[in-house]
């Protein structure tokens, strides 16, 4: 891409609606490079790491494919698809809030509170109310729990500009603890001694998509992603959110009600994260154990960035990661490695992503790849220059 430097002496150019169309191919290529390269580089670096640990990277990655897609006579992909449901919803929630340039890092607390409520009230609700109504109530309850858990950070940021990284993290810790208190206390299954909730009957869980083992939570997730994409790209609310994210002072100048927008975007984000807990625990688990914390959000973040905060683009990345994490279990077991190896891969993807973004940005600006800071640092690494 070239920069468009407009000289005031240029004759008035014809006004076209979409001057970038001719370069659409370039842009698609560019986006692919920026999004796929980090993944490829991270897998490469992961392979080197595996070699260093004395494992065979080829068989490791083959096992991931087997465990996440083709295993069991082309049945394993359904496990990956089931995993996608909560991940997509969390990704949608994070896309909304990151678009506003706000860091909701409290997803773990929001998620677990939703999960605790769903599994805690699930057995009694499904027994007393008709199943569709009970499901709807439970799903809304989880969403509301997630949303409520963002209120304190949202209001503090909206009113006093308090750094939301801190407040969401702290609310997350509190939320995780509170969820465990609930699981070990009022929601404890009296029939067992280990801390866990009562198990939902199989027929009282979310129904499957006909012909598959995949629960309809996946459809809910896809629906949510589409709605989020539409809202962010086509509506006035989405535009205000983008303006606020790009430049909060401009948003104030344009008359955007910043406090209200901050709070609503937080609520939407928390609601979607709570929804993720509902579909995961109503569709897959059916109960929750004390101390259980899938921490999906931590690993979703990189892919939300790789998708460049585009809700639709999130889908293929989440699909990729679902395969990686479902297949990774098998691969890690076969290689006698901790499954936390996946965290390393995700961390590497993030690091490579920032570097590639950086290189791309330099190229757009038409400058050299080396910024003055780095050049200076390379010339005199870390040491103060002595005066001549």
């Amino acid at each position: 891409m070239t920069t468009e430097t407009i000289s005031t002496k240029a004759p008035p150019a014809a006004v076209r609606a979409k001057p970038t169309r001719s370069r659409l191919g370039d842009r698609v290529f560019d986006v692919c490079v920026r999004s796929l390269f980090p993944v490829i580089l991270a897998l490469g670096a992961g392979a080197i790491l595996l070699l260093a640990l004395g494992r065979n990277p080829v068989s490791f990655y083959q096992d991931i494919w087997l465990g996440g897609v083709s295993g069991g006579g082309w049945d394993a992909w359904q496990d990956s698809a089931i995993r996608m449901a909560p991940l997509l919803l969390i990704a949608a929630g994070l896309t909304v809030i990151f678009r506003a340039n706000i860091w909701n890092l409290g997803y773990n607390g929001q998620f677990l509170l939703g999960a605790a409520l769903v599994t805690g009230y699930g057995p009694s609700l499904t027994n007393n109310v008709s199943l569709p109504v009970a499901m709807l109530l439970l799903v809304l309850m989880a969403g509301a729990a997630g949303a409520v858990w963002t209120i304190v950070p949202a209001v503090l940021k909206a009113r006093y500009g308090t750094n939301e990284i801190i407040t969401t993290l702290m609310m997350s810790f509190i939320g995780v603890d509170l969820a465990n208190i609930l699981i070990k206390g009022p929601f404890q299954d009296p029939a067992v001694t280990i801390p866990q909730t009562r198990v939902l009957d199989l027929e009282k869980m979310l129904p499957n998509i006909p012909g598959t083992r995949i629960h309809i939570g996946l459809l809910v997730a896809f629906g949510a992603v589409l709605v989020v994409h539409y809202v962010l790209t086509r509506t006035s609310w989405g535009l205000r959110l983008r303006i606020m994210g790009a430049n909060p002072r401009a948003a104030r100048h344009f008359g955007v009600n910043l406090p209200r927008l901050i709070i609503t975007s937080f609520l939407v984000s928390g609601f979607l994260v709570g929804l993720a807990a509902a579909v995961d625990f109503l569709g897959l688990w059916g109960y929750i154990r004390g101390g259980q914390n899938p921490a999906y959000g931590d690993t979703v973040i990189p892919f939300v960035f790789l998708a460049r905060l585009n809700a639709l683009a999130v889908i293929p990345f989440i699909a990729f990661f679902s395969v990686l994490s479902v297949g990774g279990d098998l691969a890690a077991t076969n290689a006698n490695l901790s499954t936390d190896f996946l965290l390393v891969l995700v961390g590497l993807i993030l690091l490579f992503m920032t570097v590639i973004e950086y290189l791309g940005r330099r190229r757009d600006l038409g400058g050299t790849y080396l910024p003055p800071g780095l050049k200076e640092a390379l010339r005199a690494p870390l040491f103060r220059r002595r005066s001549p």
Partner: protein
Amino acid sequence: MILASQVWTEVFWTSVIAGGLLAGVPLMFTALGETISERAGVLNIGLEGMMLLGAYLGFLGAHYTGSVWVGFLTGIAGGMIGSVFMIVLCVWLGLDQIVVGIAITLAGEGITSVLQQAQFGSTYPRLDAAPTVAIPGLHHISVLGSSLFDQPLIVYLAFVFVGLLAWLFRRTNIGLNLRAAGEKPEALDAAGVSVVATRSWAALSTGALAGLGGAYLSIVAAGIFTPFITQGQGFMAIVIAMLGRGRPLWVLLGSFLFGIALSLSDSLQLAGINISTDVVHMLPFAAIIIALILFARRSYLPPALALPYVRGAR
């Protein structure tokens, strides 16, 4: 029901203070590190990963040499490895500090867990208890004696370090440079001091201190390394540093209070009181949230925090 007779005992208070110190020192090292970074305008979200690197490498050092001091040094090196990413990507290249921080935390969590498992399988070797140094004359005092004045040498050094840092911030050119780098980096640059170098040193110190905090956690506090041993303490340290607003003494106080909260359920159990660890664990966070709600208006962060500095850019 909590009975006064259960808590009003010497044993209980000794265990509270000792426990608070044991759990508070790693927080303190790490939060002091973050304080240095924040003063210089670098927001380090990757502390958790750096602590874990320090905890793991520190444990290895102590495990293979049998010396806690070698362990502390390898732990410092571990934290510094993490901070090198921060320095190159954020300080030199000006990339997003939060994204890189998250990446360091994820990779740190993953790599230490993988290496631990690769090396020791599912066994968790234990280290000998770190030797303590009793301060003559003082360690006989009731409650405070055995809790405060009979500690590993590193704890005393930690207190000395707090004073040193306070002096460094207030009375030296280094302190002034750090503040300028966080408040208005272009002014520091115009004064002929390299912002990149100042911030790089600050970020490196942060890594070193987070690594030391992690090493203390595995070597002294736990005597063992397990994956995810830090359990969010890196994030707690960020909170403590922000609340301490750049003042080492406040960081000391905050770390100690958090340390007590982290260890209080053990002390209570010792006194025969069973309160869920979840409740106790939640308390300091709840207290801070309440404090933030009440005093939100007064929180202060350097204006240039988390903003990369590129000379000539406006």
